[in-house]
């Protein structure tokens, strides 16, 4: 079944109606709704997470703090907030690959990755990643050898997870700000290695 749907036009009208009524009754102001939207359209997205990863790749002491208490270490870079109050960073190693899903809905570490992409919220991803992770990873072009242990993390409570990917080979001479663009959201969810 597709996640697409026929009722978005009527839903859009109902959302407009709800906002219109709340404004008319003086219960909310438009600038507050705007500020929430702009936070994720402008300020908070996966670039934050990429900066965290790049720092961990060049600074061993930061990497240790990051793995010990993700929330606090990520706060050192100025990042944190809603849906990131208890961040746990999962380290990929040559022997271990981590991948994150939320089968209940869409739990996701907003302060470091922004809001989740559509596929993360899709029924296909939510239903299958916990049961056949290697098959789903292969659909993302990620094929793992039998010697790599796959660890699937279903975020079901208050902890939010982010993957610390392996530093790519050949990136040894690069500075921190040159490493940032090598990190994608897919790496930090764990659907690519």
């Amino acid at each position, binding site marked *: *079944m597709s*996640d697409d*749907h026929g*009722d*978005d036009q*009527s839903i859009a009208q*109902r*959302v407009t*109606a*709800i*906002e*219109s*009524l*709340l*404004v*008319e009754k003086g*219960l*909310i*102001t*438009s600038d*507050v709704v705007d*500020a*929430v*939207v702009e*936070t994720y*359209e402008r*300020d*908070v*997205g*996966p670039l934050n997470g*990429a900066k965290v990863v790049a720092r961990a790749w060049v600074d061993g002491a930061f990497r240790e703090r990051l793995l010990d208490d993700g*929330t606090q270490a990520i*706060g050192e870079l100025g990042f*944190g*907030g809603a849906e*990131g109050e*208890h961040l746990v960073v999962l380290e990929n190693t040559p022997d271990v690959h981590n991948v994150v899903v939320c*089968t*209940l809905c869409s739990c996701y570490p907003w302060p470091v990755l922004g*809001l989740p*992409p559509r596929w993360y919220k899709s*029924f*296909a991803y939510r*239903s*299958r990643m*916990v*049961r056949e*992770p290697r098959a789903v990873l292969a*659909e*993302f072009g990620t094929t793992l050898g039998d010697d790599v*242990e*796959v660890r*699937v*993390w*279903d*975020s*079901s*409570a*208050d902890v939010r997870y982010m993957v610390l990917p392996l530093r790519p080979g050949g990136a040894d001479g690069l500075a921190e700000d040159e490493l940032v663009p090598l990190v*994608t959201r897919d790496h930090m969810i764990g659907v690519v290695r």
Partner: protein
Amino acid sequence: MGGMHGFGPVVRDPSERALDEQPFHEPWEARTFGLVVATSAKGLRTGSTRPAIERIEPATYLASSYYARWARGVEAALVAGGSLTSAEIDLRAAMVEAGPTRSRSTDRELVAAIAAFLDGPTRTSGEEVAAAFDVGDRVTVRRMAPDGHHRCPRYVRGATGTIERINGGWPHPDADTPEAVYRVRFDMRDLWGDDAEPGSLYIDLWERYLS
């Protein structure tokens, strides 16, 4: 959703790889998201929208897009909270052009508070609470069929795993006082049988779910 069959491959738009992809794809999706946060900050609805989303009739849930489910959830929570009635929403939706779309007034204080809430370092959450289980303990997830909002997916019920970490204490969604939440590791075979892919599944579970 965990473990259900029949949803096919994970379909991904090529644009969804970019670090700067826009989080909303329709204006109403953005307004829905903004309203969920803003109405919570203003105390206009009771609790989370999750219970309301989970009360959507299953066939409708599966036929609705993600933000359509959020929109249904925030509407139900606003009605339950007494801020709006379904009748007035019906009426306004039929003639949305009749109502205001933007407020004349602003609320800079709340804008600043929300900015700090969404985008600023926080202390690590989780209270110190008594924990009945220790790291290394083998635990079995209780069999149950709860009605309403919970955080124990069906696919782990009845399965036995190992406590890997005591995350801390948080209130269960229907409680006010913190309760121990554990990271439990399951061997994939203990969830899906002998044909399972090798590997481990980690999930955080409240103490009440475990025995």
